[in-house]
């Protein structure tokens, strides 16, 4: 039992040691604490995976966390199939990225800080996936947000970094607002927050309604939607996607680990985890699917025109996350998780590869100032191509299997599904286009940067390239865990493995259709490549022409549909303005303080007026006395 607790605990210990002693003692040896810790976690996770694979589900309660009246919640861990996969994804990628960071962050003055935050993140993420109840999940959920905040704002002296960190946290809070309420509602509905209990009772409330703000709402739908709010925030779905591109202000390993492979997929994990609840509500499922679909095309379209290498990948991430939600929404939970799993590898690879590029160029991120790096950085180029092949869904690589699974599931799940499939296919086309565009702009053609940069161009050191290779391995072969039954009977190992948790969805549709779907996706992948090839290699002038032809569209896309600007104008500015001018300036200062100070001032004014009655002349005094006596006589004798 202790070994399972150690999985999250080791990174925590690493964090504590590094944060307390890093500054003065450990300094640039911080990785000696962090890397072994997370590596051990990985090993322990593997053993846990083995244990689960042998059919055991581990559910341990460590101690009672909060007890209040009937409300009880424990610190406890559940390691089932879903968790086991997540554990592997998290710890393996973490380990690789930790190692990568040794090289990447070398010489940074916040080196120890970086590793401690990263360790803390791993701890939080592990808590998130290992929790056996909603509140502990929430704990991990918030904690990863915290780490994300720290790491995005790692170079806090840069205003944009500080802003981005803050933005990420606050935008996530919007999601957590719903998530928190959802957790509360779960308890109020089921009387427990434990997964096992909640999910076994899930069906008991089907059809119940709840009166909220005067209208009856389907209870289960409400719960699901509230929980989904959290997922939307964390996984950067519309309309809360705005933080993720900005999050690229953080160091690249962070983008890879947190903002591609692990944390952002927490939302997917959450929905998958709660599949017994979601399955009960069509509305919720459709919402998930639509949000996912819309987000994916929305983000992909933005990615088409971005110039910042990391931002392209970031939008790609958002888009891929949308894919996963699309999968979840059509009931293909295992497909979603499968894509999560494969995506973790190829997206981490993309990020780390871009990190390698950025590192080589001295923190240049604008692709327009790159080009022709192929010959300087062959390893990076190679892994980049692998990752791109994988993400675009070229058969034989991981991405193909998971992506195809999703598209097929979508296609086979009714009319909405067909629409979503179409959407997904278009996204796939776009994905292929911008991914190849990235490669062509970065690695092909002529170098467009400064001479000095050119002079320093070199392949990254081993400590960076080796993890890249490992990831590239994952990007190629991870997908073989889920070969479609169409191709290989019982090939969908992962689907079967997850079956106990996520169920066995079966779409309706013929083999023919399935093959057609598969062919289509391969076709669009190639089509995307071709388009990019034409535009960026064959006819390099074409993009400019296109821009001048479709200027409004280009501007719309380039400016990310002006979402940030709209939020700023509609939410942020008015709130700040209202709090300053209305709440503080008018209500607090004018009205409340006006009364508070006004009453004493009034009394004071009275005082000044009344003291004038005291003229100092004794006849006046006598007059007042006599008048007083008269009033009394008049009042009591004549009026009463």
């Amino acid at each position, binding site marked *: 039992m202790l070994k399972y607790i150690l999985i999250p605990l080791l990174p925590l210990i690493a964090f504590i040691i590094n944060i307390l002693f890093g500054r003065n003692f450990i300094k640039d040896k911080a990785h000696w604490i962090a890397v072994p810790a997370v590596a051990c976690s990985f090993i322990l996770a593997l053993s846990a995976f083995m244990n689960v694979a042998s059919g055991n589900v581990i559910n341990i309660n460590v101690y009672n966390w909060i007890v209040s009246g009937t409300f009880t919640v424990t610190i406890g861990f559940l390691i089932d199939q879903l968790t086991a996969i997540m554990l592997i994804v998290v710890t393996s990628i973490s380990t690789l990225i930790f190692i990568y960071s040794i090289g990447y962050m070398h010489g940074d003055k916040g080196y120890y800080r970086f590793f401690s935050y990263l360790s803390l993140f791993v701890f939080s993420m592990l808590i998130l996936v290992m929790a056996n109840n909603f509140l502990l999940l929430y704990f991990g959920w918030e904690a990863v947000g915290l780490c994300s905040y720290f790491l995005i704002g790692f170079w806090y002296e840069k205003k944009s970094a500080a802003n981005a960190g803050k933005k990420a946290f606050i935008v996530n809070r919007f999601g957590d607002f719903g998530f928190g309420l959802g957790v509360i509602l779960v308890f109020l509905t089921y009387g427990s927050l434990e997964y096992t209990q909640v999910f076994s009772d899930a069906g008991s409330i089907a059809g119940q309604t709840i009166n909220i703000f005067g209208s009856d709402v389907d209870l289960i739908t409400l719960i699901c939607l509230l929980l989904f709010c959290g997922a939307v925030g964390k996984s950067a779905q519309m309309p809360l996607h705005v933080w993720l591109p900005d999050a690229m202000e953080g160091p690249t390993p962070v983008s890879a680990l947190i903002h591609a492979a692990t944390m952002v997929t927490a939302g997917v994990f959450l929905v998958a985890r709660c599949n017994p609840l979601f399955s009960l509500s069509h509305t919720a499922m459709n919402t998930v699917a639509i949000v996912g679909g819309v987000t994916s095309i929305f983000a992909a379209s933005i990615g088409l025109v971005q110039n910042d290498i990391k931002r392209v990948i970031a939008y790609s991430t958002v888009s891929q996350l949308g894919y996963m939600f699309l999968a979840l929404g059509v009931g293909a939970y295992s497909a979603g998780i499968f894509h999560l799993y494969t995506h973790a590898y190829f997206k981490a690879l993309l990020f780390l590869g871009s990190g390698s590029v950025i590192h080589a160029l001295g923190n240049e991120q604008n692709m327009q100032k790159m080009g022709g790096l192929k010959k300087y950085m062959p390893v990076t180029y190679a892994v980049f191509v692998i990752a791109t092949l994988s993400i675009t869904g070229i058969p034989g690589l991981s991405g193909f299997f998971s992506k195809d699974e999703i598209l097929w599931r979508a296609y086979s799940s009714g009319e909405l599904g067909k629409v979503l499939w179409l959407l997904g296919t278009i996204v796939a086309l776009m994905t292929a286009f911008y991914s190849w565009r990235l490669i062509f702009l970065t690695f092909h053609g002529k170098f467009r940067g400064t001479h000095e940069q050119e002079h320093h161009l070199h392949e990254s050191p081993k400590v960076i390239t080796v993890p890249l290779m490992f990831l590239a391995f994952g990007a190629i072969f991870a997908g073989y865990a889920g070969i479609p039954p169409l191709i290989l009977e019982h090939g969908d190992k992962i689907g079967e493995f997850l079956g106990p948790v996520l169920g066995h969805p079966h779409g309706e549709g013929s083999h023919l259709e399935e093959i057609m779907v598969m062919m289509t996706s391969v076709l669009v992948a190639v089509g995307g490549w071709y388009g990019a090839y034409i535009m960026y290699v064959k006819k390099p002038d074409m993009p400019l022409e296109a821009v001048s032809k479709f200027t409004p569209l280009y501007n719309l896309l380039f400016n990310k549909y002006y979402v940030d600007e709209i939020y700023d104008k509609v939410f942020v500015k008015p709130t700040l303005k209202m709090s300053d001018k209305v709440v503080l300036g008018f209500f607090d200062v004018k009205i409340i303080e006006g009364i508070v100070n006004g009453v004493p001032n009034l009394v004071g004014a009275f005082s000044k007026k009344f003291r004038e009655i005291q*003229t*100092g002349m004794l*006849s006046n005094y006598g007059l007042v006395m*006599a008048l007083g006596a008269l009033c009394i006589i008049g009042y009591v004798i004549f009026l009463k």
Partner: protein
Amino acid sequence: MVPLSWYILLSAVMFSIGVFGFLSRRNLILIFLSLELMLNSVNISLVAFSHYLQSMRGQILVFFIITVAAAEAAIGLAILIAFYRNNPTIKVDEINLMKG
């Protein structure tokens, strides 16, 4: 017979005149005189009550009032003189060193 109320009414009128004098005159000495007028009006009513009630109390009280009035006069005029030494006025509306 003269009814009791006549005396009392006379006393009341004199009392009111005294009050008027007290409130209206400027000269402190006249204010003082008005006070004496008020006291005398009370005395009249007391003696009248005493007479009609066939009780001695009223008259005794008058006796004391006159005594006190004498003492009051002595002290009052002494205060007046002491005051006049420092502030050569006895106009009541000029005496407002302290106010507010």
